[in-house]
């Protein structure tokens, strides 16, 4: 976030923070509500839960952590992190196919 703020700018930001706060509470309610809706597919259940969590995390990172208006140096750092994180998850999904099936 730009380091120079006028009071008027900050008041506008505060309104945004409040809206994000409400959106996060609504997102939590949706996540819990979906738990009681039984979807046939496990993959669909996981996808919806992760989708809602991703939107919530975008709101926290974007607005509370000011990532939507940060300096390039931070984006560069996070891009590196994202590459390693995605690689780690890719390896995890790859390894899932090698997992032995445990029979009860």
């Amino acid at each position, binding site marked *: 976030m730009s*380091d120079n*703020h006028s*009071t008027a700018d*900050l008041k506008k*930001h*505060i309104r945004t*923070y*409040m809206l*994000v*706060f409400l959106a*996060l*509470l609504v997102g*939590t309610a949706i*996540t*819990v509500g*979906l*738990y009681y809706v039984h979807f046939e597919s496990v993959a669909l*259940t*996981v996808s919806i*839960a*992760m989708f*809602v*969590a991703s939107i*919530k*995390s975008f709101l*926290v*990172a974007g607005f*509370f*952590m000011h990532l939507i208006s940060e*300096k*390039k*140096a*931070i984006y560069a*750092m*996070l891009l*590196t*992190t994202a590459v*390693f*994180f995605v690689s*780690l*998850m890719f*390896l*995890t*999904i790859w*390894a*899932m196919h090698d*997992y*032995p099936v*445990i*029979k*009860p």
Partner: protein
Amino acid sequence: MEIPYTVEARKDTGLYNAKVGIWLFLASEVMLFGALFSSYILLRVGAASGDWPAISLAWPHGLLNIPIGTFNTAVLISSSITVVMAWASLKMHDFGKFKLYMGLTLLCALGFVSIKTYEYHEKFTHYEVRLKDGKIMTGHIQGSPMFWDLKTLADKKITTLDFHPDAAKQAAKAGEAPAAKEHAKHAPIPVGEITYLSSFVPKHHTFFAIYFTLTALHALHVIGGALVMAFLWLPGAKMWKTDPERFTNRVETAGLFWHFVDLVWIFLFPVLYLL
């Protein structure tokens, strides 16, 4: 010697140094929690199909208290808004409001840790019992002791275990006949019949191992963040009088860490409690 770039931005990064530092730290934290999430996924997909506890290697469902978890999520989200408001108050030169919002953040942190402690206690007093006839039950021991196992029973020379199976609660919820409820409410078990006894501790099942690892690491982050903010709220706040911009930057970096802790919980909650 004066520490450079505590307030003014470096020309190459466009940022004051603490901000670069906290983001580098958070990047490493992403990988730490990422590795544990990866472990969770592999343990989860590697679990046997079927219903736990009848199938001991199956993945347990519904063991965590969803209303409490939801409330704790709301507490942590609330602390995120209060910490960003504390920073905004300083930017608007309103030190009084900063004190108020930071105090509220600390209250939320205390609330979160207290609720988590209660949830842990619930798990440490919840047991699985396996009997010689192959019957498996989950429930509570009379008096709600923690961490009992067969050795504890032998050490305490207990001959009959006063056990309250979860089936009693389930029968009550299902609205079964009072006689059935009464029958299920209390089950004295001769210790000689028990082949296995364990509370819901990490060694009991891979679910509890990963649950306690993830949530305890997260709780340590909450406690660490709360300690830093308590410092900024009380003794560290003196800096506001001598170097207000540097103090505001300190609050911002502490806030960034706090938001990250919230962000991790946003994923932990559905993964552990709901899926």
